[in-house]
């Protein structure tokens, strides 16, 4: 049996949704028999592969690179899953939307710094004016809310997707869970 090709990524989030993925514990070993993780922070490949069956996306879109990456994942993936409240609603990262980006950066690098007080801008990417949920930019096939969604909900969803079904996770997780 050919394995399903799974990609995962984190955008503007806390990696808690990925940790919840790992909280599947022993079930991960079984899953590894059916799924190959082809891209993401847990594996070493650096570019987004061409053919992805399922992409799990954690985090909100906060920078131009987040946007570029999520668009690329969408283009290359059969099914794209919005994993966790940050991806679904932009959650805590969106708290910065109350302030202009400039003010947020000034607070971190001018007020709260002692030496070389200036906003870093070499090599690193710029922030978007607002942090937004991913479905505002690309179509999403499956939403799994929760902060983070519990491992049971993630496992349930993956098992359904493996069988070619659309998972309904509303009994297992909800916004803020």
């Amino acid at each position, binding site marked *: 049996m050919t394995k399903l090709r799974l990609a995962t990524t984190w955008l503007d989030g*806390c990696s808690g949704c990925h940790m919840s993925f790992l909280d599947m514990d022993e079930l991960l070993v079984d899953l590894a028999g059916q799924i190959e*993780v082809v891209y993401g922070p847990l594996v070493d490949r650096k570019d987004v592969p061409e053919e992805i069956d399922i992409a799990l996306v954690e985090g909100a879109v906060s920078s131009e690179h987040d946007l570029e990456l999520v668009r690329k994942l969408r283009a290359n993936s059969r099914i794209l899953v919005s994993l966790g409240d940050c991806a679904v609603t932009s959650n805590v990262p969106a708290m910065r939307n109350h302030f202009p980006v400039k003010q947020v950066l000034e607070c971190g690098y001018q007020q709260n710094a002692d030496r070389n007080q200036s906003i870093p801008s070499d090599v*690193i990417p710029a922030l978007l004016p607002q942090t937004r949920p991913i479905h505002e930019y690309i179509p999403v096939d499956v939403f799994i809310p929760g902060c983070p969604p519990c491992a049971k909900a993630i496992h349930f969803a993956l098992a359904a997707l493996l069988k070619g079904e659309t998972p309904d996770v509303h009994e297992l997780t909800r916004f803020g869970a």
Partner: protein
Amino acid sequence: MPKTIHIDPVTRIEGHAKITIHLDDKGRVNDARFHVTQFRGFEKMVEGRPFTEMPSVMARICGICPVSHLIASSKACDRILAVQIPTTAILLRRVLNLAQLVQSHALNFFHLSAPDLLLGMDAPVDERNVFGVMQKHPELAKKGIWLRKFGQEIIEWLGGKRIHPAWVVPGGVNAPLASDKRDAILKRIPEAIQITRDALDLYKRILDDFPEETRTFANFPSLFMGLVNDKNELEHYSGTFRFIDAAGHIVADRVSPRDYARYIAESVEPDSYLKSPYYKPMGYENGMYRVGPLARLNIVDRCGTPLADEEWAEFRSLGRGAVLSSFHYHFARLIEILFGIEMIERLLNEPDILSKDVRAVARVNNHEGIGVSEAPRGTLIHHYKVDEHGLMTWANLIIATGHNNLAMNRGVLQVAKHFVDGKNIQEGMLNRVEAVVRAFDPCLSCSTHAVGQMPLRVELYGAEGELLDRKERAS
């Protein structure tokens, strides 16, 4: 035109980063930089919010060490309430903090670093990950999963859920420990200890396979910093700061966490969203210090639990003064797991552990609070100011990974200089440059947050800008 190698993104670490390596005309490494490419802005976005929200909001900085933020944040809030929290609440917070230490260290060793240590730095890219370890070393992979789960389940049993529990609150914790939960944890202690001792044996066996890595992985003199208790033993919850130098001599001791700003200053790097703290009295660069497991084991006089102390003695024999090679972060991490398990057992046997008095209630009595804890990756400082209604007016966070920024940068350069040959770039060379970062176990969504998901493409340009060589890590 300079020749630059980009490693982007750095994988098997927490958060987003990239590395640039600059080569000279002969293909030798001139410079190398570690860039953290994401910024999250927690210090600003909490302005105007009630301080009682802080533990839950600040925990969302990091899903790997949310408990550290819960603890440091709640301790800052305890100061704002100006209360002394119940003894049982302290015991329970300590257990929670250590459970997280165990799970986070297990994650680094088994899930993130074992692919390098067991499959090899030069193993094929598509296999060099935790799923590859599951295939080649299923028994070990299962033990790693078990040990991480041991920590995560303690957090769930105490706090209600594994990631982002809302249980630690200003003034204490919001529910006592049930006796059946305590017994369930105690029952698992022997197996947890066995797995950790096996991992320590394994580490000592494979160490001989990495002589060059041990010699060059951020192996240089620096200061070390962390908390110690009043007996100068390992401490992750309270205590005072101690700084030592590379020879092991004490530079500053018994520093109250409230005075942190007199000892630690932060510099901005133009090419990274991660700031670089340094030891203020010695200035930027000279004041470079390291934190985390390696630092903690270097600064203490002993761990304070029997099995961990035996291992600690062996660890300390690796250096004349302090142990300087950052490769031994792995060793130190395993010893701290052992300490954590022994200490959890001790704390759960305290007579007051099941007491129902776990929370002090008060209104705003102080307009400023500083809370400190030792997170898995090092010292974590939360500093808040509030108005008379308890609304946040200012926050400063110094996050564990940040303290290591100068040392990580120097380590990346040291490894790149030793291993990278610009004339003949091999993937395994670049993996070693990433592996030195993994040894520090950085947590970057904590410190900021990154972006930049270009494929790893190494392009070598000649002095005229002509393309000489090109390698892609993508399969």
